[in-house]
């Protein structure tokens, strides 16, 4: 399974690059990610809860960043084991291109599944992977840019930790 696409993000290339290396950003971007520890240099450990067709599972696995050429390109590689559900693994080649309005993030994703996921979910896996990728980059974009709702929330209850987490990443970066 392969898919590719791009997203325009209204931020500079360095900011987008930093986001890709940030565990907090990644955790909030990966759909269903409930835990993410580690760092860009040592790799991340992640726990992701996802439902693929009839198979719902908790995937535990590692995410590593490879072939890093700051701030232009990198490869995100991950493998998750879902116990009885089987496994999912894949990689994303990401390339950042400067544009007049910010940065264009190009991605090429390849995904592989095995075990019960393949046995039961193969017919929907392409659509699922596309949805996951779309969601990831959608989340990534909104985490970086900060959505209007988040800004609203920020003004209403600026001091609580809970809402602080929801703030746009860049805004928090600027504030701190």
């Amino acid at each position: 399974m392969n898919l590719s696409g791009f997203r325009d993000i209204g931020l500079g290339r360095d900011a987008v690059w930093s986001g890709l290396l940030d565990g907090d950003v990644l955790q909030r971007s990966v759909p269903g990610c409930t835990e993410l520890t580690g760092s860009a240099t040592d790799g991340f450990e992640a726990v992701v809860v996802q439902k693929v067709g009839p198979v719902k599972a908790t995937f535990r696995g590692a995410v590593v960043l490879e072939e890093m050429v700051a701030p232009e390109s990198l490869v995100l590689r991950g493998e998750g084991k879902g116990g009885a559900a089987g496994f999912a693994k894949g990689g994303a080649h990401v390339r950042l291109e400067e544009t007049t309005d910010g940065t264009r993030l190009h991605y090429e994703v390849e995904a592989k599944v095995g075990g019960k996921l393949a046995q039961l979910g193969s017919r929907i896996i392409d659509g699922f992977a596309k949805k996951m990728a779309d969601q990831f980059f959608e989340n990534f974009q909104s985490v970086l840019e900060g959505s209007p709702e988040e800004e609203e929330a920020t003004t209403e209850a600026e001091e609580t930790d809970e809402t602080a987490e929801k703030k746009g990443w860049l805004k928090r970066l600027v504030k701190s």
Partner: protein
Amino acid sequence: MPKDGGIGASTKRREDLRFLTGKGRYTDDINLHGQAYAYFLRSDIAHGTINSIDTSGAEAMPGVVRVFTASDFEGVGGIPCGWQITDRHGEVMQEPKHPVLAEGKVRHVGDPIAVVVAESLDQARDAAEAIDVDITELEPVLDMKAAVADGAPKVHDDLTSNLCYDWGFVEENRDAVDQAIKNAHHVTTLELTNNRLVANPMEPRVAVGDYSLATDEHTLYTTSQNPHVIRLLMGAFVLGIPEHKLRVVAPDVGGGFGTKIFHYAEEAFCTFAAKQLRRPVKWTCSRSEAFISDAHGRDHVTKIELAMDKDGMFLALRTDTYANMGAYLSTFAPSVPTWLHGTLMAGNYKTPLIYVNVKAVFTNTVPVDAYRGAGRPEATFQLERVVDKAAREMGIDPVELRRRNFITEFPYATPVAVEYDTGDYHATMDKLLDISNHAGFAARAADSKARGKLRGFGIAHYIEACGIAPSNLVGQLGARAGLYESATVRVNATGSISVMTGSHSHGQGHETSFAQVVSDMIGIDADQIDIVHGDTANTPMGMGTYGSRSLAVGGSAIVKATEKIISKARKIAAHLLEAAEADIELKDGAFTVAGTDKSVAWGDVTLAAYVPHNYPLEEIEPGLEETAFYDPANFTYPSGAYGCEVEVDPDTGKVDVVAFSAADDFGNIVNPMIVEGQVQGGLAQGIGQALLENCAYDENGQLLSGSYMDYTMPRADDVPMFKVDHSCITPCTHNPLGVKGCGEAGAIGSPPAVVNAVIDALQRAGHDVTHIDMPLSPDRVWAAMNR
């Protein structure tokens, strides 16, 4: 006038009362005191090296009794293969070890790595997730031709290649066949695939192992078609348990279709673990698990060439087949593409020269073995497809081309080593054309056309070989078992009878039809006769049920044993009637002195045998119980003509089977209703293969069609009302019943009939389509039409 009992009567199936009211006793209904539950952790990758297995986490989980891995089976043998093929160079096949649990490597998705035994199935399943298996993935071997190319990764590192064997048959014919093809007026060539199938019996496999410390006896309850074979293979080759300490019980079994012939690792595991743990161990296969652990069927890729003279007379036939063995050799896997396939390549035709080459290949897929028809469907499909293509190329009507080449004199020795004893292929063809109203096809096609549909008529004429035998011959061919059948007929004191058969019934209705045979021979009511099967403790050593052998071989053993009973009873009757034995006649359950009204009833004779007060004790022993083993002199050769009529939707490519007629020659018929049911079931499976079913792997060796969402079983609305006829009868000459076997015919003859019909429909509509590989799904048909 239909009979109301005995041979030839459509007696209703006595077993249906319990099956239809939910009172069947299947293996999963067996629950023993103190039983623990086994859950198999299976590989989710196709090929890899096992670096380590850490079971400590699982062992600490609630309810876990023990976790087993390959290291627990070091003193145990591998799962044996029951047939050894010698290749065309005189070398024996490559035979890899098939461990109970994966040793060092995993070789297919589903290969068992470890087993958790726990107090409950849920606990076992949960604990299996805590097993940490470290595997390094290896490149999987999937495509058969690539698998035997130089430098291909190897499924088994200790073998020289992925080639199990390269079989040539008949090797001495090779050059003559090549020459005849080279010089022929016309050669029709066809490359085709016989799609991989999953048998999908309604009841998934189950095994319950039990061990008695008091008697040192093992018992295995299992979903098997042949409990004695399992006892022999597992006892002698895997676990080292002598027969007198090992009982195998196969109670009611919900369908087998071949996939329950074989000895599986789960059976050996449960038997082994029950002794280790001193408590019963049960494993119940889930449907998902069945897809990756039951032996699959078919999966051949073939090139076939048929050489003809200018009149369409067949001169020579040459085939080149790759047959998938999967990752390990299942019990009878090597025999399927060879002796069960090559010997049938003559079909119904007088082709004088035939050469069959088969390369059996290991791949990182589930093992492949016999599935309803086993080799014969593959042979029939190739042959009936190439004959149909040849007819179109030669401009000869497909019925006429077949008729020109039909064998008409019997016995007939084929160039592929078998001798057909009887048959009348013109008769079955005539019958088919009649019951299918072949003459009215043009009008029906016009009607379809008016409705925007493309109608086609496809014919196939099959031969099959049932009741594979005799044992001394199959031994020479590489069988590691005998192929006789056994029966013990135990007449009780009051005249009722228990027949203990080595055959096994798992949907065939033996309890009804076998009782009809004995009832007919003695002349007592069938209700007085019970058929006992499925338990090695109370049946004589028998080879079980597969290959449409049960009536021809098992039924003949029952006839032989019953003949011994009648012979002895006649002596007793002669004594009671004070007459010469030669003058005693048995009729309608009474012994009569010929030409007199002096007679003695069956029950009085049987009582005398057990209460021998007035009895010739100096001449014969008391009691009335006889055993017979029957080893046939030859195969039986059922044959038949099948006609399929389809409508193709030109907009979508969807194929509807609108009519299907079958004219079979099964020899004599014991129960016509059961025979019709067998044919209908076989036709549904064959139509399933032709149009719907496909076992597909992706390029990583992941099973894609691993559930009923993607593996399409035929449903009621996928098949038409069948017209089934078995009035063409040429009795088998070498078994006492004159029967031939009917269990697989439907699945053998129907796939080529369906494909021929679709090709006919497309060609009539002007499409230049000569072949589409099965299953003929709408997308494939549409693509072929719109190329």
